Each structure stands twice: as structure tokens, then as C-alpha cells.
């Protein structure tokens, strides 16, 4: 018997009789369901979501109606689509402050390219995809090359994109918004993909909800069941250790920035095809909502820990709070206060989780 084994066995004999499962290691018995749940990154956010739901169910009568549910889900999905890649990026140890305006850039590019070239809008949509992915690549490449903090790199991109959005729109359209493209070829099919509605029973739902759930499913699969997922956790949790065992950390991080860009493209196309015109000044500040959703969902700011499902719960909390305040007929100014308080609570919970996870001996 090694010293380690002896050290291990001492504290776990308390509740041996609880589960007489012969196949399991007898020392595993102490891990009750509650303890196993405690280990999940989503735990804090699920508790928070239930609390917020109960709170508004009591405070606002109309909150419990089906139509309200659809509105809440829609609000959640618009944040949730971006919160998924932002969460992955955060698990990979980095930030993207340009994510909010990148959505607007993506919409502007598709709209203005199609309008100016009088092309099928699908061409504009594709050009927008290429350009947006290139911006994501730029973020990742600069990060790897300069070794500067991602906060600085993406703050730079954020400001540059903000300027480009306003400048180019003014230059090309002569105003702060784009021209209507609703009558152009391909608009209706693109609208169907990015901004249509569908019905389940009596509930009228936005297609973004499907995009959102699909992205959460794919991201969860990638994170937990693929090599890339392992590399994302490792790049955020210990980049040097990961590099030492042959993990392509640079490639992983660039890929994550491109995933953010891809989802910004989806969000941007939704923006364009649901409103027909795009305001060039939109999107500023949204990057924080994505980060908040990811952090409430259990992602550690320092990387290496978190989940895609958590980010979805975080986005759902955001949706419930933003719409719940309206249904409760309160002054919506209070919304930001709630958001801030929840962020603090979530971060405290996460810090505690990390301490537990990292405590040695």
C-alpha cells in the first residue's frame, strides 16, 4: 500500500451502507447525488433560473402565459446564440469584446453588398460569412502572434469595427442605416432560414430558438466528447502544460475565435432578415451580455471550466429578467441592476467552486 492510497481512504467511510452496489468502488459511496450535482458547472445557474422564474411567476400575472413564454424564449435565444461560442472561448481562456459589434458588422456587410451589387441576397450572406470569419481569424491570430491579453486585442477590434460600421454605412448608404432589401432576390428564402416563425401547438416561436438549441447541442458534443473539446479545456486550464503534451493550443484558440465569428454571422443575418434594415450603431454593449450569460452559466473568467448548457441557462435568466420586468410593469431601468447583482452572485459561486476543485491534499 502506498502512502497515497492510505491518505485517500481515511475520510470516506461515513456512509458506507447507503448504496450496497457491489460493482462500484466502495469508496465512491460518499458521493451522493447532491454532491455530484455540486460538481456541475451549471448548478449555480439552474438554481438562479428557478429562483428568477418563481419570482416573476409570483410578481407578474402575465408572465405565466404561453405567449409570454415565447417572448422570453426569443429574447433568450438572441443572447444565447452568441453566449454559446463566447462560453467556449472563455473555457479556452480568452475573451472577445468585439462579439457584439461583430454581429452588426455581419448584418451590414450582407445588406450593403447585396444592395450595392444588386446581387441575390444569398451572395451577400456568403460574403458576410467569409468576412466575419476573417475577423474572427484576425482576433485569434493577433492573440497568438502578439501574446497580448485578449482583452486588449479584442478591445481594439471592437473599436475598429464600431468605426467601420458607422463609417462605411455613412459612406455607402449616406445615412446611419442600410437601405431596404426586402424586395430583392433570395430575401424570402433567407428570411425563412434566419428570421421565420413556427408554431408548436398554440405557441408561436422564432426560428432563432432552434438555432440556439442546435448550437448548444453541438457545442456540448464538441466540448465533452471530442478531442477538440479536450483541447479547449486544456488551452484555458493550463496552456503550457497542454503545449508540453502536444495540444495545438494556437490552433484551438484561433478556432474558438472563428466559432464566435460564425455565430455572430448567424445573429447578424437574423438581425438583417427580421428587420430588413440594419442600424449601423447597434450591438455595442451586447458583448457584455454574452459574457454575463456565460459567467452566470458557470464559466470561470480564468478559463478551463464551464459548459455550453450553462451559457444557455444564463441566457434564459437574461431573457426572463428582461421580459419579466416588463410583464411586472416595473420601470425597465431596474433591469441592469438585477443583471449586475446576478453576475456578482454567480461569480462568487464560481470562485468557490474553483477553490474546491483546485484544493490539493
Amino acid at each position: 500500500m502506498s502512502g497515497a492510497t492510505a491518505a485517500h481512504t481515511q475520510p470516506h467511510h461515513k456512509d458506507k451502507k447507503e448504496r450496497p452496489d457491489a460493482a462500484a468502488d466502495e469508496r465512491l459511496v460518499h458521493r451522493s447525488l447532491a454532491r455530484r450535482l455540486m460538481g456541475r458547472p451549471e448548478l449555480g445557474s439552474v438554481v438562479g433560473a428557478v429562483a428568477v422564474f418563481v419570482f416573476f411567476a409570483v410578481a407578474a400575472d402575465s408572465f405565466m402565459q404561453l405567449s409570454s413564454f415565447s417572448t422570453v424564449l426569443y429574447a433568450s435565444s438572441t443572447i444565447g446564440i452568441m453566449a454559446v461560442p463566447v462560453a467556449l472561448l472563455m473555457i479556452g481562456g480568452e475573451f472577445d469584446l468585439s462579439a457584439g459589434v461583430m454581429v452588426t458588422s455581419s448584418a451590414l456587410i450582407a445588406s450593403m453588398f447585396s444592395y450595392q451589387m444588386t446581387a441575390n441576397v444569398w451572395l451577400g450572406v456568403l460574403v458576410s460569412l467569409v468576412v466575419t470569419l476573417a475577423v474572427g481569424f484576425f482576433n485569434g491570430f493577433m492573440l497568438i502572434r502578439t501574446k497580448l491579453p485578449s482583452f486588449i486585442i479584442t478591445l481594439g477590434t471592437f473599436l475598429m469595427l464600431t468605426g467601420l460600421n458607422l463609417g462605411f454605412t455613412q459612406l455607402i448608404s449616406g445615412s446611419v442605416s442600410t437601405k431596404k432589401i426586402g424586395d430583392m432576390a433570395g430575401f424570402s428564402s433567407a428570411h425563412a432560414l434566419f428570421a421565420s416563425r413556427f408554431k408548436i401547438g398554440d405557441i408561436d416561436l422564432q426560428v432563432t430558438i432552434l438555432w440556439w438549441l442546435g448550437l448548444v447541442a453541438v457545442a456540448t458534443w464538441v466540448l465533452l466528447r471530442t478531442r477538440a473539446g479536450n483541447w479547449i479545456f486544456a488551452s484555458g486550464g493550463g496552456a503550457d502544460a497542454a503545449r508540453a503534451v502536444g495540444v495545438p493550443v494556437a490552433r484551438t484558440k484561433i478556432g474558438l475565435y472563428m466559432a464566435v465569428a460564425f455565430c455572430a454571422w448567424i445573429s447578424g443575418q437574423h438581425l438583417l432578415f427580421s428587420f430588413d434594415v440594419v442600424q449601423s450603431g447597434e450591438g455595442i454593449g451586447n458583448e457584455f451580455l454574452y459574457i454575463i450569460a456565460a459567467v452566470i452559466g458557470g464559466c470561470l473568467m480564468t478559463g478551463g471550466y464551464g459548459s455550453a448548457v450553462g451559457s444557455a441557462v444564463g441566457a434564459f435568466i437574461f431573457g426572463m429578467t428582461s421580459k419579466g420586468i416588463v410583464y411586472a410593469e416595473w420601470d425597465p431601468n431596474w433591469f441592469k441592476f438585477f443583471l449586475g447583482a446576478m453576475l456578482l452572485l454567480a461569480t462568487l459561486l464560481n470562485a468557490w467552486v474553483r477553490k474546491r476543485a483546485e484544493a490539493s491534499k
Partner: protein
Amino acid sequence: MTGTKTGTKEPTGTEELVELASVSKFYGNIKALEGVSLKVDAGRITCVLGDNGAGKSTLIKIIAGLHQHDAGTYTIQGEEVRLGSPREALDLGIATVYQDLAVVPLMPVWRNFFLGSEPTKGKGPFKRLDVSKMRRTTREEMLRMGIDLRDVDQPIGTLSGGERQCVAIARAVYFGAKVLILDEPTAALGVKQSGVVLKYVAAARDAGLGVVLITHNPHHAYLVGDRFVLLKRGAMAGSHLKSEIALEELTRQMAGGSELEQLSHELERAPVPAHLGEGA
């Protein structure tokens, strides 16, 4: 095959895995390492001892492929090499376990064990980690070396420092390392944990690996080592087989021999400061 097994002083029956002959390394005009020779045999432990700045880490970096040597020869299994990257070293069966870079603390043990070399199953978009195999193998490999993990799902950061080193070593062994380079594996550990790691190092040796143990603790080195190479200011200060040297002598040489004697002399004679003599 270029190299031949020359100058084997050792009893026969062991395979020579790595040999450095008069290896030197310069950083600009600074001699980081000069004329260092070292041999690693299968199933033997070669200890490299030296104080801080003696050139131990430069030596590891050359063997591990992070740096290239400027003079001398580096042979792996009889073939002269000049390694361009850690990956090349790994492919030749040389695995390095660094003291602080071994694992990612927040990740489960089984994910850490296979990090960078994850087995997959399925095809195309359904290509996925072979999770059951990863868990099972991790448990088995750790058990084989005498560490009974109660839960391979726990973050590796919850293991003790010694156990973490052991996971990193077990990983190297599992992925077919022939030579294991351990950078100060016991430096940050207590007595008991050091024992765990040393036992594990011995287990790796018994499994037929050649081990290079870098340390500044002659007591740990003497417990498991077969051959001792002493470094001092980038140069060889001695190379001994265990049969040729006693622990006291090794400790004396390691600590700087005459320097230590002088130090103890000075300390003995140091007058007691007045304010301490009065009693606080």
C-alpha cells in the same frame, strides 16, 4: 547504424538507450553547459545532481528536444541525433515530465491522462472520444503502479502533488516512452509524497525504462539511482556508479565539498549577536 556501444563499463545485459558525449551548449558567449557526458541504460536510473544554475535545466532541454546542443554528440539507441522539437523526442521514445507543467488542474484525471493523444472511435462528424476506454485505461494504469484512484472523474488538482507527478509519469510510460526524464519531481513535495513519487520512479525502472532523474536532493537520488552525474557551473563535477560512492560523499560533493566545510566553519565561529544573547 553509425554508433557502436563503446566503453560499457557496466555489467552486461542492459541496453544503452541514450548517450551524451562531451555535449556543450552556448547562449551567445555564455557557456551554459560544457563537456557533459551521460549514459542512460534501460532499467537503470541516472541521476543528474547539481545546485541552482548548474546547468541541469539546459541539459534536460537538450535531451527533451527544446534546445539543440552546439558541440559533442547525442545518441539515441546507437544513432546520433539532433532534435528539432519536443515532438521529435517523443517520437523517439523520450518523454519529459516537468515539475510544474505536468497537468491541467481543473480537468478530470482521465482527460489529463490522455491529453494530446486522445483515442477516438466512430467516423466523420461522429468521431468521438472513446470515453469508456479512457476511463478504464487511466484507472488500470494508475493501479498498475500502485495508485488506487477512487474516482477518475475528479479534477486532477484535487490529487496530491505526488500523485499528480505520478499521473504524468504513468502517462509517459503508457504512451510508450523508453526514456523518462523527470525534472525535479520531488522538489515541491513533502517527505511522504516524495516517497510515493520515488516508488513510482522505481516502478518505471522495473518496467524497463531508462530514467533520468534531475534533482538537487542527494538523499532522494541515492535511494533510487544507479549512476550519478554531478554538475557544477555548467560542467561535469563527477560521474559515479552507485557502487563507487557512498551517500555521505555524494552529499558532500553535491553540496560543494570544500565550500560547505568552509561554510560550516564560518557558521561555527560566528559570534552570537548581543541582542540575541540577552534572551527575548
